[in-house]
């Protein structure tokens, strides 16, 4: 695994990328813009499940409207995140926060597009059950851990 990470970090493309003065900051900025979009797309649905916002709209309406933006934010965050990771792959190999982040990311993606999606799309009534609220809390906890992990692995 470490050898694979070293291979990623020292791939010719990545060596060029690290030596560029603006490429890493540019990609990191785009990654952050993706975070804003992801935050909006996730929060609006989870807050609806919790009954905090848009309570006059069915959960499914909010969920369906938010889904393309969630997917769009993933399409921005995953490739940029992969490039940022490859820049310092061997450093991350030794960071617990990185492995926690990756694990939670896989869990969040699986959870979001299976259980959460089924609950959100099925709820055509306005009622939010305790199960739906639990789904929202799990979703928020997973994404918050991923974001926090992302911040922590950037520290010196």
């Amino acid at each position, binding site marked *: 695994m470490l050898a694979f990470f070293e291979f990623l970090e020292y791939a010719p493309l990545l060596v060029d990328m690290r030596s560029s*003065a603006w490429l890493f*900051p540019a990609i*990191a*900025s785009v990654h*952050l*813009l993706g*975070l*804003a*979009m*992801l*935050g*909006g*797309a*996730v*929060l*609006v649905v989870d*807050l609806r499940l919790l009954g*905090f*916002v*848009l*309570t*006059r*709209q069915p959960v499914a*309406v*909010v969920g369906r*409207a*938010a889904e*393309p*933006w969630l997917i769009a934010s993933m399409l921005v965050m995953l490739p940029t995140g992969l490039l940022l990771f490859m820049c310092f792959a061997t450093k991350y190999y030794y960071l617990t926060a990185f492995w926690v982040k990756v694990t939670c990311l896989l869990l969040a993606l699986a959870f979001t597009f299976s259980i959460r999606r089924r609950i959100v799309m099925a709820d055509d009534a306005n009622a939010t059950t305790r199960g739906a609220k639990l789904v929202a809390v799990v979703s928020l906890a997973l994404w*918050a851990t991923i*974001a*926090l992990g992302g*911040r*922590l692995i950037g*520290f010196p």
Partner: protein
Amino acid sequence: MSDNVARVMSILGFLEWLSATSGSVALRESHYFFLAVLTVHVLTLSVFAGMAAIIDLRLLGLAMRQVPASQIVAQLVPWATGGFIVMVTSGSLLFYSAPLERSGNLFFRTKLVLLVLAGLNVFVFHKTVYGRVADWDIDRVPPASARLAGGVGLALWAGIIVLGRMMAYQDYWFDG
């Protein structure tokens, strides 16, 4: 000319005084507290800018089109405002930790200008086209002036996020 110099000197004098206060010194010397403030500042971005993005996309007629615009604005603005208060508070602490470096940072200065413009955009929107929201509340695509406010807002917040990220590279690009 001498008036100008005196004014600049007094701003500089104030910033020097500020950076010598015990709170400022404590903030920049306390490794973990500083990083905690920075973390709060970056992560609250997903709440504030996330909510702002949904609102602006609705104004552009690109997201949540079947939800009346007034419902989106009325119910998401409190969350955006809460996020904004955390952003400004943590951001002020980050400024306070190193007043001279931050104020000399070109990205920071540009970011402040964009922040003023973003505030102006929100103010004008609420004073003008949002006052007539009843006329276009359920329109899937709002009128041009509302779309303009949404587009300008989206562009300004994106610029502010990028400039904030770029602040770390001031030395690298300009003073290195």
